[in-house]
Structure formats: structure tokens, C-alpha cells
């Protein structure tokens, strides 16, 4: 299982990369895309939308199922990856490159409370049982 150590994670299978300017980039993990299978549609949140931590804000749909994506922390949407409109399958082939949206966190320290790679690995392991 590919779980890059430089990223943060949520128990709901989002990955979060903290950028140099303090903004964060969000996608779904290798494990999540494997569970969902071939991705065919991504609905990203509107740029400028204000989100609370844990709020449903995007949807990824595979041939098989639709899954919600949750805001990892509170903040404002600053960008979306419109390349996924025409190639949602990028989430399958390169889940840690195919980001879905970016946020400016309301509290820069909030990301510190997210899971690190080891803790997320434990979440994945516990689901296997």
C-alpha cells in the first residue's frame, strides 16, 4: 500500500499536502481509489466556498459507486483541479498527483491534528479485518 510519509491523512481516506504558503491540497488515497474502482466523474466544490471540518464538499464517482469527499479542516476553497473533468481516471493511475481541490485553512495548526502515514496505515489495516 502506497502511503507517502510526507502527507497527512483522514480516517475517511483523504490525503492532505501542506504547501509552502500554508494552503493545503486534498485528494483521495491509493486505498480509497482501489476500493472504488474505475473513476468516471468528479464533482469538486465551488471556489470560494467556506467549509467546516468534516463537511461533505466533493463527490467522486466510479463505475461502481459514488463516494463523498470531506473537508479535512475548516477553511475556504481556493482552487479545483479541472483536469479531472476530462480525465477522472487520473485518480486511479496517480492518486497522489490527481488532487481534487485546495483550501486555505482557517487555522494553520488544524492540519497538525490530522493522521500521519503510520496512523493512516493503521486505519487501512483495521478495515481489512
Amino acid at each position, binding site marked *: 500500500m502506497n502511503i507517502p510519509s510526507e502527507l497527512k491523512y483522514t480516517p475517511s481516506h483523504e490525503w492532505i499536502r501542506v504547501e509552502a504558503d500554508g494552503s493545503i491540497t486534498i485528494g483521495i488515497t491509493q486505498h480509497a481509489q482501489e476500493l472504488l474502482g*474505475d473513476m468516471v466523474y468528479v464533482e469538486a466544490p465551488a471556489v470560494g466556498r467556506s467549509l467546516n471540518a468534516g463537511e461533505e464538499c466533493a463527490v467522486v*464517482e466510479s463505475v461502481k459507486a459514488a463516494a463523498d469527499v470531506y473537508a479535512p479542516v475548516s477553511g475556504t476553497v481556493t482552487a479545483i483541479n479541472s483536469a479531472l473533468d476530462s480525465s477522472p481516471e487520473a485518480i486511479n493511475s496517480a492518486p497522489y498527483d490527481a488532487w481534487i481541490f485546495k483550501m486555505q485553512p482557517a487555522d494553520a495548526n488544524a492540519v497538525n491534528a490530522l493522521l500521519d502515514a503510520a496512523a493512516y496505515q493503521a486505519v487501512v489495516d483495521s478495515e481489512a479485518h
Partner: protein
Amino acid sequence: MTLKQTPLNAAHRAMGAKMVDFGGWDMPVNYGSQIDEHHQVRNDCGMFDVSHMRVVDMRGNDVRTFLQGLLANNVSKLHLTGKALYSAMLRPDGGVIDDLIVYFMREDWFRIVVNAGTADKDIAWMRAQAAIHAPKLDITDHPELAMIAVQGPNARAKVWEALPGSQALTESLIPFSAVEMGEMFIARTGYTGEDGFEIMLPAKAAPFFWGILAEKGVKPIGLGARDTLRLEAGMNLYGQDMDETVNPLEAGLAWTIDLISPRDFVGKAALLANPPTQKLIGLILQDRGVLRGHQVVHTAHGTGEITSGSFSPTLNQSIALARVPKEVAIGDSVQVAIRDKMLTAKVVKYPFARNGKVVVHS
């Protein structure tokens, strides 16, 4: 609960299948990419393990008469040895107990293939009806038979390569008919909208035959692609497009129900007494998104519901089957409620794709 396994369970795992609980069976949903598997079948061929389906043999002198009363389609159409007929089996109130394929083998032997999830209930119903109408009839199911479907434009040629002697026996087999070959039963049927065979064989022989097909380059296809292939082909799925609560005339099954001949069958009186007010139609989504079962369809004539919806790899758009008021017409524009949005879909006559080609356009 322990999941039931087909004789090919170990083979699926060895081929990297992702296994899921499919109605109590441990079955492969895909072996990698479901979309690639779908295209593989439309463009070349692939093989499916459908051993969870059940074969039921009915033997006795009165089997034809019995089936004329049991099934909504008319087995009097069957005279050629091996010829198959698709039929619904109905409750007295017209609800669909199951859909099935019945093969005429001999005047005292018909073979029926039923769905996995309904097999036990089907056989109980068949036996209860036989107890009344044909007490001497022998009804024997064959859970020991495996079933492998090989489907796609190159499917027959691959089976001929894999199974010496099969070409001479099956090359002239007309669609929707079957022939016995030793302990195997080879039917030119399927659930994909492509040419090919469904092959029943003893469970102990199944892994070997599966392996030979793989050696000949036939790719394994999971139940995920099986569902998108049958949806594109406009074929009903029991439990989604119809069930015991659904009038088959509202499920696109009118073509299989013989209401013309004077023959009586279980459910006929109820169908005649309850003319359909809805019908099954095809939808192609015009906006971005994915149609799914149970989404509500808003039409100019009232609301309906999607019974099966998915992304169509062949059309590269989302498609669905939906039950809507019968006044809805082909070409109408309807609205489908998806989460907090209303998206536009166009009403089409299905099937959507067959024999590798898109056959309907939005």
C-alpha cells in the same frame, strides 16, 4: 456467514481478482480495471465465472404441458433440440418470481437456468406447482455444475481453440440454442449483447477449462463489467429492474409474455386485469454525472424511478433503465434528481450497444 464459493474461486484469486460478497457468493468484481474488461468483451472476448447460477432439469412425459402453465412465455415455440427461450416465471398476482432460460432437449426433458439469488425459491415454487399439476415430474437441480460464459466477437473462435472437437459441433449452432458435448453443455447465449457461449460443465473440470481458455489468451471478466455490458445491451437484471412486486409489462418484458394464445399460465389473469400504467425506457444523461438505481425521474407525465444506472464505457456517458409513466415518449427530455441537483436526461429506446457498436444516439 461463510460465503459460498464456485469451483473457480482459487483461480480468481490467483489472477488477482478483487472478490466481493455477491448475494452470499464470494465472486470476482474485477481483476483490475472494470472499464478495460468491458472494452475487452466488446472488442475481443472475455470469460466470466457464472457458476453461481443454477441449472434445473425437468424430466417427465408431461413436462411441456407443465411448463406451458408455469412460464409466461410459451414453450410451444420450442421444437428444435437445444433451442432456448427466455421467460419470466410469475406469481399468481403477476409479480416476477424470476427470469430464466429454458432449453428444449427432448420431449421428456427441458433444462432451465435460473438466477443464483432466487434459485432455492424458484425450485420450491416449481416443486409446489408440480405437486398440483404434474406430480410425476422429476425436478432435479445441479449445483455441482459450473458455468463459464465466453463472450465477445472472438469468443466462439477461442472456445473452438480451447476445446478440441467443439467447432464441428457448434459452428452451425444458431443463436439462442445449445448442444451437449460429453459432460458439457454448450449454449450460444449470453448476457452481454455480444456473440459467444455459455458452457455448463462438471465443477471438477471447470478450473482446467478456465486455465486452457486463459492460455489461449481469453481474459477473465468480473461481475462489474458483466453489469455494464448487460445494461448497455438493455437486458434486465432480476432484483433491480423487476422483482416480485413488479408487473412484468412495466419492466420491458412484454415481448416475452404470451397473452395472445388461449393457453393459461400462472399470473395471466392478473396481467389481463391490471393493464400497465408505467413502462421501462432507456435514459442517456446529457449533463455530467452518473445515473444510479433509485434516483427519481421527473417527467411531464409524473415521476418515475431509475431501476439500473451506471456509466457506459461504450457510449462514454451515463445511461440507465427507468420505469416511468407510460405516456413518456422516446425523445422526451426528463430531469433526474442526483443529490442536490436536477440533471437532464434524454429518453431513448434501448438497447444502447450491441455487437461492439453503439446502437442509440443522444
